[in-house]
């Protein structure tokens, strides 16, 4: 180095000035920018900071309980239970498979099922792994909490049903809301986490039962941990209790009287429309939907060819068979179509063109008047009346007047309307003309006519009330969950008021009384506590070996107070025409209701051993 490196410096002032300018302008820009962030737009960022740290979470409202009319013990209640959750960002990814397999061992599930629910990303959200976890299982997790990083739990009550199996169809069950339900009910206070009634009363009165969830505000850190006391923005409002018109004693009685026979029983109070019992067999156990094997149980139910999910009282319609003759008699009397005292001679068959129609009694009933014909359930008589004196139009008119072919409006979801045919309907449906044979079939409740058990119960109710049907209903009253006060009471509402003279109904009732007191079932009706009037029916289902056996009746036949009267309709999809299960079961039910006896006592009192176990008898007979 020749020159002295430390000679006087000679930096260019204009270049340095340029640098200083750059530095100063950057400082000014940064200062202004910071000012705009912290002072001008402070509110915006402040709100964002709040929004990030404040989380509102929903506090589930306790679902209302369901009681029977006695309002003593709940049929559906809530049981303390827990849900186990994970926060993926708080757990240890390396040890996760081990953590999950330990957890699965305690919860009694497959580790894979739990793993599937955990997202790959380390999110701070709480993800529910399993609900319906018992207190004991939570204790096991809690005592080893250091082995379960990121795992937490919260209270999540589950529904518990404490009722006889046949009430499953009436009460229904609850489950997590699905997408379609959410779309439909989006504006009615439901969200993606709602528990919703899926069937029965739980579905019908979901809005009453579910209550309003509360809102809780918590301040959380980035890991989702609470850093402040929880605050309620809105306290949850529990759902209301529902009291049903069902009397669980009568329900159990009917259930046992029906036994293991496919069919349904409806008991209602004609004076108000209150349903006292509604049984459908086969049924299902709702509590098993919340058990570990719920999925497999559910699928076996779905695959069962007897359709256990079907509520046979309102969701399946069958030919009314000879029960329909009550409508025929009403029409005949009211229209004065044929003198009730004039006799028609039953020879056991009727020839129409090239077809021969056989009465159920092949040998013939001999000469019968209207009342006799109903008592003997003579087909020939009603063929004559229907075919020659009434015609399909009148029959249709009276059927509709008496509630057939139309929903009863019962407070249960999924009711079917049944069917009352007419010539136009047949032409449209089958592209065939209505023929005389159709009128004949219609006259004895066969052919196209289809009715539900509840519609037949309404029909009998109209006869009892002499022209009025009250909307059948299951809701008796709504009560406050805390005070037990009645919040809402279901008043009887009129469904139909037929313009039929009470004289007609009186005649009909007399004939119906004769069915029980003089007809072929008189020996079956051996109960002494109540006089019953009714009508049997045996309908074709379409299979030669399967019949529907009906018995539609009411009792007592004459009552001072109409409130005391009950309608009992039993419909059994019997496998044999002559077993008469329906009247036999009805006999037991009346004994139980009016003698205030349990089914076992009824069996003993009436000495009707044969009703004890229906399947045994079927087996014995088929052998």
């Amino acid at each position, binding site marked *: 180095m020749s*020159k002295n490196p430390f*000679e006087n*410096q000679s930096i260019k002032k204009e*270049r340095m000035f340029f*640098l200083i300018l750059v*530095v100063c302008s950057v400082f000014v820009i940064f200062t202004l920018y*910071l000012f705009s962030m*912290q002072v001008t737009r402070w509110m915006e960022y402040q709100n*964002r900071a709040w929004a990030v740290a404040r989380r509102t979470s929903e506090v589930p409202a306790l679902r209302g309980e369901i009681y029977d009319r006695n309002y003593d013990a709940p049929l559906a209640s809530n049981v303390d239970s827990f849900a186990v959750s994970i926060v993926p960002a708080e757990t240890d990814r390396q040890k996760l498979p081990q953590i999950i397999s330990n957890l699965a061992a305690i919860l009694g599930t497959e580790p894979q099922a739990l793993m599937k629910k955990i997202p790959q990303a380390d999110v701070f959200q709480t993800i529910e792994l399993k609900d319906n976890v018992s207190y004991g299982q939570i204790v096991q997790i809690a005592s080893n909490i250091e082995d379960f990083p990121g795992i937490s739990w919260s209270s999540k009550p589950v529904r518990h049903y404490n009722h006889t199996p046949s009430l499953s169809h009436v009460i229904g069950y609850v489950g997590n809301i699905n997408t379609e339900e959410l779309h439909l009910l989006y504006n009615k206070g439901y969200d993606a986490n709602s528990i919703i009634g899926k069937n029965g009363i739980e579905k019908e009165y979901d809005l009453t039962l579910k209550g309003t969830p509360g809102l809780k505000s918590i301040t959380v850190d980035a890991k989702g941990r609470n850093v402040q006391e929880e605050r309620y923005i809105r306290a949850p409002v529990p759902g209301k209790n529902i009291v049903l018109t069902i009397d669980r004693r009568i329900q159990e009685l009917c259930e046992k009287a029906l036994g293991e026979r496919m069919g349904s029983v409806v008991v209602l109070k004609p004076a108000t429309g209150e349903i006292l019992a509604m049984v459908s067999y086969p049924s299902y156990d709702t509590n098993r939907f919340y058990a570990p094997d719920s999925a497999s149980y559910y699928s076996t139910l779905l695959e069962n060819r007897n359709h256990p999910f079907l509520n046979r009282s309102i969701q399946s319609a069958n030919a009314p068979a000879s029960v329909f003759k009550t409508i025929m008699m009403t029409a005949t009397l009211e229209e004065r179509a044929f003198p009730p005292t004039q006799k028609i001679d039953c020879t056991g068959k009727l020839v129409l063109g090239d077809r021969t129609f056989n009465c159920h009694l092949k040998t013939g009933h001999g000469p019968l008047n209207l009342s006799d014909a109903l008592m003997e359930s003579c087909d020939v008589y009603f063929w004559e009346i229907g075919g020659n004196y009434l015609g399909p139009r009148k029959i249709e008119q009276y059927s509709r007047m008496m509630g057939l072919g139309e929903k009863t409006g019962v407070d249960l979801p999924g009711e079917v309307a049944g069917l009352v045919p007419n010539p136009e309907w047949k032409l449209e449906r089958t592209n065939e003309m209505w023929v005389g044979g159709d009128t004949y079939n219609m006259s004895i409740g066969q052919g196209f006519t289809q009715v539900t058990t509840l519609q037949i119960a309404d029909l009998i109710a109209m006869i009892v009330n002499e022209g009025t049907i009250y909307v059948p209903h299951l809701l008796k009253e709504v009560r406050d969950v805390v005070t037990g006060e009645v919040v809402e009471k279901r008043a009887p509402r009129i469904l139909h008021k037929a313009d039929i003279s009470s004289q007609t109904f009186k005649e009909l009732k007399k004939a119906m009384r004769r069915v029980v007191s003089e007809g072929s079932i008189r020996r079956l009706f051996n109960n002494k506590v109540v006089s019953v009037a009714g009508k049997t029916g045996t309908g074709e289902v379409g299979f030669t070996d399967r019949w529907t056996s009906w018995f539609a009746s009411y009792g007592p036949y004459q009552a001072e107070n109409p409130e005391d009267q009950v309608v009992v309709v039993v419909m059994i999809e019997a496998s044999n025409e002559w077993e008469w299960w329906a009247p036999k079961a009805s006999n037991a039910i009346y004994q139980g209701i009016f003698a205030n006896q349990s089914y076992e006592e009824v069996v003993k009192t009436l000495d009707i051993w044969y009703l004890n176990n229906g399947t045994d008898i079927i087996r014995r007979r088929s052998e």
Partner: protein
Amino acid sequence: MNRKSYLTFDFIIILAVLCLSVISVCFIYSSGLNSEGINTSVEFIKQIIWVVTGLAIMALIIYVDYKYLYDFAYYIYGVCIIMLLITLLVGNKVNGARSWLGLPGVGIQPSEFAKLGTIIALSAFCTKNRENIRSLAVFLRAAVIPLLPMALILAQPDLGTSLVYIPIFLVILFMAGTKIRYLFFLVACGIGVTLFTIIPMWSGYVLKQETFFVAVFSNQLLMLAVLGACLLIVILSAVGWFIFKKGIYYWMCYSFVILSSSLFMAMLAQKILKAYQIMRLVVFLDPSVDPQGAGWNILQSLTAIGSGGLFGKGFLRGTQSHYNYLPQQSNDFIFSIIAEEIGFFGSMVVFLCFFIIIIRAFIIANSSKDSFGSYLCFGIIAMIFFHFVINIGMAMGIMPITGIPLLFLSYGGSSLWTSMMAAGILINIYYRRYGFKI
């Protein structure tokens, strides 16, 4: 030393440095608090140790005449390069980059010290070649000095830290008096590369559509074609210049060389840059692209700063930071927590400290009796200023996330010691502005 010589100390810089050190320790303590207000970190204790030792090192550097820096410039530089090499071979990985020598937590980051080494070497080089500083050959030789550590640091890989060498080089050469067109060439290339690299990503993530103009920068074949055309123009204009000796051909050649090198380097960059680096750039352009992933840091930092307001939420009262929404609080995002807790006024104190240090550095550079001292000052100005702009700009969302610390404030021994040493050098130069002292 007489009584007067003490007054020749630049006490203003020392005061600013001390002020920043106190703020640093306070907010590293604050960043260690969790949501329950319990301290979960010993970082602030370590920082105190580093501040104290750093001040001692600073004092030592003030004591030793900076002419020795000149004498040993290339040795210092050599040691830095060797350290970087060793780091690359046996260093520890922290956050994906092999940048630590020794144990993590107690080791050092040679890439921090290498900045000072490079400043010293560059200053010495420019001092030695003052006479022909305007020649291209000297410029190119000077460029080797920062390129070597840059390459080694890029290999770690640590893009952010390596970028610091560019402004250091530019500023020292600028002040040493090199031709503006050389520097402009570099700056234009840099801007070109950045633009050409970002445009296709920006269109992909933000616009979510592709136009022909964008396709030029994303389609490899098209890019090669454009590059070929540019090179042809370069050759033609070079020929034109040799034959006609007209200025227009020179400038045409000059601009198309810039263009083609930018294109070429953009192609390389698109191949070399890691996915997370690309995402950082995209997120810088639009943080809402990925609010849970890469955009999280920026959004949380913006929220922290913005919600601080005029006076802040109060010391140890920041919600964004203590609820752990803010990432890397003690390192890269220390400014966010400061701005959140002591607000605009507190941030102004920080700004003022940096402004004082930089302006004092200009004054010292101006008053230095020799060129070497001035160049050192300008290198240090470039380093501190670049860190300041990038780090705080990143926290405020006006610069991409590059992960470089804020000197004097961020947690970390190496970075703090480097800052202290730099401050020491500044004071040293000021102290000896009238001639050599002990």
